[in-house]
């Protein structure tokens, strides 16, 4: 199973925290802060796990996710969606959702879990 995480998050502090936590857990973390061109970044170097914020400049996380799922190459990419607006419902296409703020341990276990689930399917 791969160890690459791509993090799409525009709040630099949050991105830095997640990067720190996941790196400590042995992941290779790349991050990107703009929603408008996120889909190209994902296509250019497809990650093993995608951590996606909902409120992004340029393009929302929901729209990016919908685009991704339409592409067969990414139809089963594990995606962890981060939301700061509370969790009324599961966003369509998300593998897992996590509300902000979160415990660091939760973040690590969620990323692991969705990555493993995919590995198991393969």
């Amino acid at each position, binding site marked *: 199973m791969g160890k690459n995480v791509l993090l799409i998050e*525009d*709040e630099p*502090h*949050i991105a*830095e*925290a*997640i990067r*720190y*936590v996941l790196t*400590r857990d042995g992941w290779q973390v790349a991050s990107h802060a703009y*929603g408008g061109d996120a889909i190209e970044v994902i296509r250019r170097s497809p990650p093993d796990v995608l951590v996606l914020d909902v*409120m992004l*400049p*340029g393009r929302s996380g929901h729209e990016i996710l919908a685009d991704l799922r339409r592409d067969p190459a990414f139809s089963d990419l594990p995606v962890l969606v981060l939301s*700061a*607006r*509370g969790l009324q419902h599961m966003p369509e296409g998300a593998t897992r959702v996590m*509300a*902000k*703020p*979160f*415990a*660091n*341990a939760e973040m690590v276990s969620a990323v692991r879990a969705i990555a493993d689930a995919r590995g198991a399917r393969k």
Partner: protein
Amino acid sequence: MIPFNILVGVCLTYVILLFGIAFAAERRARRGRIGWLRSPMVYTLSLSIYCTAWTFYGAVGYAARSGLEFVTIYLGPTLVFVGWWLVLRKLVRIGRSQRITSIADLISSRFGKSNLLGVVVTVIAVVAATPYIALQLQSVTLSFGVFASDRPEGWALPNVNGTAIWLAGGLAVFTILFGTRNLDANERHHGVVMAIAVEAVVKLVALLAVGIFAVWGVADGWQDVAARIDASPIADWPLMPGRWIGLTFLAGTAILTLPRIFQVLVVENADERHLATASWAFPLYLMLMSLFVVPIAVVGLSVLPEGSNPDLFVLTLPLAMGQEQLAMLAFLGGFSSATSMVIVAAIALATMMSNHIVTPLWLYLRQGGARAPGDVRGLVLMSRRLSIAGIMALGYAYYSLSGGSAALAAIGLISFAGVAQILPAMIGGMFWRGATGRGAALGLTVGFLVWIYALYLPSFGPGGLLSEAILTKGPFGIGWLRPHALFGIEGLDPLLHAVFWSLSLNTFCFISVSLLTFPTPLERMQGLAFVNVYEQGPAPRGWSRGGAEAEDLLVMAQGILGAHEAQEFFQKEAVAQGKADFLPETTPDFIERLERRLAGTVGAATAHAMIAQFAVGAAVSAQDLMAVASEAQQILEYSTQLEAKSEELARAARQLSEVNDKLRDLSVQKDAFLSQISHELRTPMTSIRAFSEILMDPDLPGGMLQKYAEIIHEETIRLTRLLDDLLDLSVLEARKVQLSIKVANLHDLLERAVQSASNTRPERSFIYQRDPTMEHVPIITDTDRLVQVFINLISNARKYCDAARPELAISVRKRGGRLTVDFIDNGSGIPKKAQRLIFEKFARLTDTQRAGGAGLGLAICREIMVNLGGTISYLPGQGGAAFRVSLPVRPEMQQRQQQAA
């Protein structure tokens, strides 16, 4: 004897005094205290510019040469004024209802807002005014000469031409200062009118004083004067009925058609009722002016040496008797007569030239047309200034060409006959709906050409502009084309001959072409508006539908009326339509009113053309007019009433749907608000929680501790700020805020705000445009809160203005008890759709989360302004983003308490 220097000094002092009066009157008017500035007496006195230096000096000369014939010059206007309800009342009513700016504008407006007619009338008026202005130069120059002559010891007049040049130049400067100082080119000239009223009194007093001196100082009372009249040639002068009727008619015509009289009679008229007073007071003034003319003439003839110029008796009589102070007063009277005429004539002609020639030409030549004309006001003012200088130069040229020799009265009559050419088109336009623009244009042109040929050119004398041969034998030897004997009719007085032929041919062409041609729809409509001006019925509209974009119209109107005027007009219209923002619906009614408003500045033709490019296809069609012109007027009126009702309904519906939209938006916003709050709170919390957990990690790399602690600190501050803002907003919204009212200078508050805002994007160079003189205004309010609003607006400009060289103009204006402060940057502004949302909570327009705040800034500003009894609003159509803060100079509650006390 009076030295030359003192004479010049007296003139200058007098002019400065006049300027002071004008200045004071204008200041008073600006403060809204019009009061007696616009009383019927001032109006009547301002009409006295009819009495120029020609009347002042020339009437006596006229009486000495031709006996009582001079009375005709007063008789004509007297008859017109006594019968004021026939023509004058209608003229003034039309002028006011159509916002007419000049006589050229009147003709142009009546005949379908045709600019061609405006140009024709302007040319006639300018050419005809030239001898008249020359006449004023001549009379003042002559009066200077009187003081210079017969003095062995004294000064010699530098030279006559020099005096005339100085005089023309001085008057031009004076007129420019007086008449175009006011930036509101369309407003009335309170200062000028007041100064002219004062001059009217000066010249009347001067002439009465000389007359009283002549009758009781030189002669021995009325009986002696009567005896001298019997002895003088005046008594023998034969009465010529033809000339009497002709001259009376000409003078009566002149009072209607002279551009300067039109200016004071119609354009400067503040109240139609003033005309009723003027109808008896003005003839009375004329009577007083003519009372002593004959006594001065006969006493002068009998006392002064043979061959003295009778045109100067008013001066030479007191001088010869050693009454220097009286002579000085008489000199000032003549000077007054000349200056007031020249000032008003130049203003009136300059208005015509700028509105009908310069501005249309400029708009036509400009690349990209006139859609966004930019600063038309600057152009209008500049062209008026240049026109004034040009008109004075023409007057001087005529003066030097004609040699300054002809008798004063003869020159004046040439002008009268010239402007009389406007009469047929004017009267026809006011009373005959069938009159057409083509008829008017041909009539005017033919009359003008005949006048030029038969009277104007010959006035330069044989060998002047027409050769001796043409005068005596006709051009190419064609006898019936001799200028003084057209069609072989000889023996007629040259003046009467020219008046007869020019006006007859003019009227004939006007009527016959009008009968043969059809008026255009716009002409038909204007004809109706002019002829039926008294009928209070619903006016036909020039625009069948709206459709123009209000913001485009605002941008154009600002270029013409000035930013504040235009904004005020648009806002008032919007409020009348029941809308809350600055932009009214572009209904036909609104467009009609806007056009009329613009016409007050640039004339009907230009205003119409400018509006037309926005409302393409909306101009009234022939079908629209069929209803107007046909006998189905009643049906139309009924339907207009229905329309008005349905418009009212539409307005209510519009208001309702606006409120509805707002409510729906509000409920959407409320949901969005909760979700936004959640987001805004959770985001900093996420960082804080994540990093505090990281800090708990025992094997945290050494350098990181400090860094992560700083992040946590930073995010808690952000969180605190958000909570503060929310709290602030809720307190403000609940109107429970404690205001701390202080007195401050607005300038200091703005300084403070600019200082505090400078740490927003400090790396950017940012230019402020401010006018400190306007900013020094005392204000009583919660100064800290006001500064908070200012800081927010300035920081926003610094943050979001996307110009390469960002600039922010801060302009302050005080109106009544309210103060407005505009913040206008040069960026790309806020899109129309977003303009009404920006004051809502969390309405951040940019995606950038880095904007810093939570999107509450403008919402807080709005609440603060409500608490301060003021408003903050977005100002559309300014190029960049523009906000207007408006608040009372002192809190309203306090005012109420003061009133109660």
